[in-house]
């Protein structure tokens, strides 16, 4: 039995790329309009507005106030949260639960950011009281490099294996007219790309992009009324390692497994039921960890699994990030992973459609390897 107490009836994206002078809310408005049009509803039907402030949104946790005023919405439920890449899954979960509880009927879940041109910094020092900057430890690449270095040492994972993730995501992006980076690259290109934080090369890193995404969540009853390709929310999960150095296996992000298996349990599915996966790829190593945590392979086996790229490619046993992901489509902090999941379930993906796909897993993770959320969506 799957959960199915709410459904996704609309997805919308803004233009993606580099747009000097644009505001995050201007992009969010574009995405919102596209999402309600996709759902086939007037904005008056929206009685929930929950958002993630962009890294360039000046409003911070009050972002919902500013966006609601700009969109002319006076909703029953409204708030903003920031969990990095786990935010979208968490917000969709909150929307779905509010709908099940009768606190809202149709919720717009929105994110916009001018991260490319708005002066975002992804290189801040992590850590607490004694800032890790004292030891030169800065930025998101470094956090993932801790995982990559350890995974390599413990399991023998190689840089070339990480490279196959990047090569494959780019191959998928070439089939997506909305992807920012569509030019194929090779393993040699990956190996020759400059080091950012060893063991991660430039081509192990995601893009930084301007853009926005909006998603409409409603009740299954209303979804039927709208008759616009409702996608089932079968299962949802979250889990977090809020301790970093204090948790021995923090680097491995074991909370991700808990988030996914909670979502599996709610959906009544397991890894073998997943036809296509949208796995949060801020860096290539992240895809390896998700493959292990989601039970597609055993711990330590993801490196050999992705080698050569066939298994995670379209036509392979588990197509991953069919739109190109954060690595090649656009860095929307995992929000486009939900959009692609929805489109795959609707069968709208043209040359990158996974034939007969009925169930997809969408994952996200954020902050200093801390947070995670997972959704199982169905046709």
């Amino acid at each position, binding site marked *: 039995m799957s959960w199915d107490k709410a459904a996704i009836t609309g997805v919308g994206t803004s233009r993606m790329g580099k747009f000097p002078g644009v505001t995050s809310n201007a992009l969010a408005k574009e995405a919102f309009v596209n999402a309600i049009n996709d759902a086939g509803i007037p904005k008056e039907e929206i009685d929930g507005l929950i958002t993630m402030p962009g890294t360039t949104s000046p409003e911070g946790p009050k972002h919902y106030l500013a966006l609601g005023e700009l969109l002319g919405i006076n909703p029953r439920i409204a708030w903003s949260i920031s969990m990095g890449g786990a935010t979208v899954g968490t917000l969709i979960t909150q929307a779905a639960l509010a709908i099940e509880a009768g606190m809202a009927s149709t919720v717009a879940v929105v994110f916009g950011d001018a991260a490319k041109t708005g002066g975002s910094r992804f*290189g801040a*020092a992590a*850590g*607490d*009281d*004694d*800032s*890790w*900057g*004292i*030891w*030169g*430890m*800065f*930025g998101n*690449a*470094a956090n993932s*490099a*801790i*995982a990559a*270095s*350890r995974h*390599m*040492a413990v399991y023998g994972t190689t840089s070339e294996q990480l490279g196959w993730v990047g090569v494959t995501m780019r191959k998928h992006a070439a089939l997506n007219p909305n992807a920012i980076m569509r030019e194929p690259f090779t393993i040699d290109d990956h190996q020759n790309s*400059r*080091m*950012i*934080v*060893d*063991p991660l090369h430039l081509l192990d890193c995601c893009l930084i992009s301007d853009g926005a995404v909006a998603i409409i969540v409603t009740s299954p009853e209303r979804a039927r009324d709208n008759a616009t390709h409702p996608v089932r929310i079968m299962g949802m999960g979250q889990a977090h390692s809020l*301790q970093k*150095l*204090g948790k*021995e296996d923090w*680097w491995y992000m074991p909370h991700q497994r808990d988030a996914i298996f909670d979502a599996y349990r709610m959906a009544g599915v397991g890894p073998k039921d997943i036809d296509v996966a949208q796995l949060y790829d801020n860096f290539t190593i992240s895809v390896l960890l998700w493959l292990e945590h989601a039970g597609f392979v055993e711990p330590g086996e993801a490196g050999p699994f992705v080698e050569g790229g066939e298994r995670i490619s379209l036509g392979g046993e588990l197509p991953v990030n069919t739109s190109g992901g954060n690595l090649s489509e656009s860095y929307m902090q995992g929000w486009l992973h939900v959009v692609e999941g929805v489109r795959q379930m609707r069968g709208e993906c043209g040359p990158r459609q996974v034939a007969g796909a009925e169930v997809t897993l969408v994952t996200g993770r954020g902050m200093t390897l801390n947070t995670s959320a997972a959704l199982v969506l169905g046709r």
Partner: protein
Amino acid sequence: MTDFIEPVVTDVNRGFWDGCAQGVLRVQRCLACGHLRYPVAPWCPECLDERSEWQALSGRGSVLSKLVFHQSYHPAWKDRIPYNVVLVQLDEGPRMISNVAPVSSEDFAVGDAVEVVFEREGEFSIPRFRVTG
């Protein structure tokens, strides 16, 4: 403009940095449950008791993860590129972010045994590690 990032010394972490100044790596030991904690914190994250004392560690451990920064993220570190950053497992349990000294070192590996050393940066002694095996 300093050429390093100075620790911000507070009432909570003063014992850590005073220890470093004396050439001793020490962390807080919870007086209620005995848990050794790092990073420095105002109470024990295990039992939440606020009473603690500073306990000297052996300074020995091993490299859990090894990074080499080729990208500059901060002016204070720009001229040191490439430099290493390590995640160290200390023998007594806590884990630290630090460096292998000198920070330009690259000829070491995950799993190597290390021992704390203190390097002078302005008015501070910064705990780093040297490879012992």
